């Protein structure tokens, strides 16, 4: 079965491109021949029922699957035309270029300042203490957290509320100035107000980054993304403009899913 690509989806020079990607956990195939172009400065949403492989595919984009010994990736994934799975690819540099925000906020059990400063420090992005301070302030400001935490930068990052923690994790990701940010259901553990703030933030971040977001909430996909891919049983069923996917789905499975007939 081939992915249905909406005919009116204009071809943009992609930031990341996946070609015939399959992911296996041992003998089990989790992703089956997925090909997709991810453009810069757009939000691309992956939707689909639980267990359809959208998170697995997302983790393949910055090789986080490497930490699972049984995981195996076939096909090619390119970042700016460069195959990220070729031998000799520097995974550390790749992950600095393709950042990730997880489902559950996972700030380090260190101070708020240290949470942000950690990335720039290990990559040597700031020469002096002043530069580092500036990176921390800039990242927190971009994540909309600066005003809330500027007086308590030395408090533990884990003392913040859930929504603040997630914005701290986003600030941590943008502190190393990546090119792509992957978000794996970033709002599933948050209340509606915190969710609204994160969604606002995602919209603002598109001025600079390519964002890929996995979400269970179709309303969220409709609100924040410009392009949407629908995954089902390890396959990418349909890909198009978000508005087209939600108003004019071509595939019957997509239609069934977005109208709530199964999920």
């Amino acid at each position, binding site marked *: 079965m081939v992915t249905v690509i909406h005919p009116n989806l204009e071809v943009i020079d992609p930031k990341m491109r996946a070609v015939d990607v399959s992911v296996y956990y041992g003998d089990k195939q989790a992703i089956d021949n997925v090909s997709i172009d991810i453009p810069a400065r757009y939000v691309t949403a992956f939707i689909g029922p639980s267990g359809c492989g959208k998170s697995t595919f997302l983790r393949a984009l*910055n090789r*986080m699957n490497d*930490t699972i*010994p049984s995981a195996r990736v076939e096909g090619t994934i390119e970042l700016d035309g460069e195959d990220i799975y070729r031998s000799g690819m520097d995974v*550390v*540099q*790749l*992950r*600095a270029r393709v*950042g*990730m925000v*997880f489902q*559950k906020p*996972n*700030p*380090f*059990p260190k101070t708020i300042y240290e949470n942000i400063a*950690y*990335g720039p420090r*290990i*990559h040597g992005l700031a020469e002096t203490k002043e530069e580092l301070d500036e990176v921390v302030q800039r990242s927190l400001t971009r994540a909309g957290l600066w005003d809330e935490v500027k007086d308590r930068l030395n408090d*533990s990052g*884990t003392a913040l509320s859930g929504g603040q923690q997630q914005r701290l*994790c986003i600030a*941590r*990701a943008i*502190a*190393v100035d990546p090119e792509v940010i992957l978000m794996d259901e970033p709002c599933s553990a948050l209340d509606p107000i915190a969710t609204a703030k994160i969604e606002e933030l995602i919209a603002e971040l598109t001025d600079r980054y390519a964002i890929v977001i996995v979400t269970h909430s179709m309303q969220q996909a409709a609100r924040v993304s410009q392009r949407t891919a629908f995954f089902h049983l390890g396959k990418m069923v349909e890909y198009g403009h978000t508005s087209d996917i939600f108003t004019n789905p071509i595939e019957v499975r997509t239609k069934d899913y977005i109208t709530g007939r199964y999920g």
Partner: protein
Amino acid sequence: MSDAATSTHIAPTRTEAFRKRLAKRYAAERRFKLAGLSAVLVSVAVLIFLLGNMTFNGVAGFQRAELDVTIDFPSSGISGDANSLSGPGGLQTLQIQGLPDVVAFYAEQSLGSEAAEGLSTEAWRDVAAAVIKDPALLQGTHQFSLPATDNLAAALKGEGTPEERALAERLEAEGKLSNNFDPGFLSRADATSPQKVGIWGALKGSILTMIVTLLLAFPIGVLAALYLEEYAPKNRWTDVIEVSINNLAAVPSIIFGLLGLAVFLWIFPNFRSAPLIGGMTLALMTMPVIVISGRNAIKAVPPSIRDGALAIGASPVQVVFHHVLPLALPGILTGTIIGMARALGETAPLLMIGMRAFVATPPDGFTSPATVLPVQIFLWSDEIDRGFVERTSAAIIILLLFLLVMNGLAIYLRNKFEKKW
């Protein structure tokens, strides 16, 4: 059937049978609580009995029977000044001038000839030590409390022949014989007489041995745990290693002693009885405990922290040393202290490598002959002389205090490194 019975629903939880079952459940809970409470009470009672008994006996262990002897130095003919008495020759200078005879003479003067027999023949060394410390003493007449012989000390406790007991009673009544606190117990080493033994030799031996054990077992154990958890591929070989380490932790300690004897003393034949070899042997025993607890602590670090660090481009080594290890450290320290406490209390393996030797001087360093606290306790408890009973209790108190200090340090470090997430 009445109308009420069919129309009104009575929940099964409102029946008499249910109330009885409920009462049974509460009774079972009360029984369980009572059993738990009595278990706690029994262990507390045992602990109080043990500590009370030790303290009661041990207090006497920190004392020794001493005779009061007054020495008139100007008329004794002993001379000397700070220069001639300082250095290693000081003791000899005094001995050549006849200090032992002078002490014996004044003992007869002070106590009478019969009682002077009760003065330890080595008592002059205490006088010499005092003089070397303060040569100005030689300018006047001074009273010294000098150790009595073992027999007189025993007589003071109501043992020995009737004549000895009578003598001890008379001297005690005259205020010339008494049990005094013996600070020298904390600075001397083993001796043949309970009046002259000290614990410092064994304590220093234990400290040196523990240092060697910690320096070897901690880094090796932590690195092994880190490698096995974070890097090792999961295959048959790592399974074999894991099972071996778990088995190693359960091997009886005397077998480690035999290993130390066969391997370490074969490599370093000159270091028999040395804390270095003792520490190496105990490190073998402690290491598996640290590896096992270390692996558990590392496993308990949430994977989300690893993911978070990896996702901003930390290398695996940075993930381990910046995130995993700091979070696992409290757990690793707890395991380390359990292993170290066990090593501190070990006797059997050290007997095998010669640390049960009679060592009359505190060890100078890691390679000089030494014994350790538990072995010293074992040796003293084996002595025939009754005077050793109290000394043994005192040594046990020192061992328990050492353990307490070690545990206290571990708890302090654990709280210091503990973080919440």
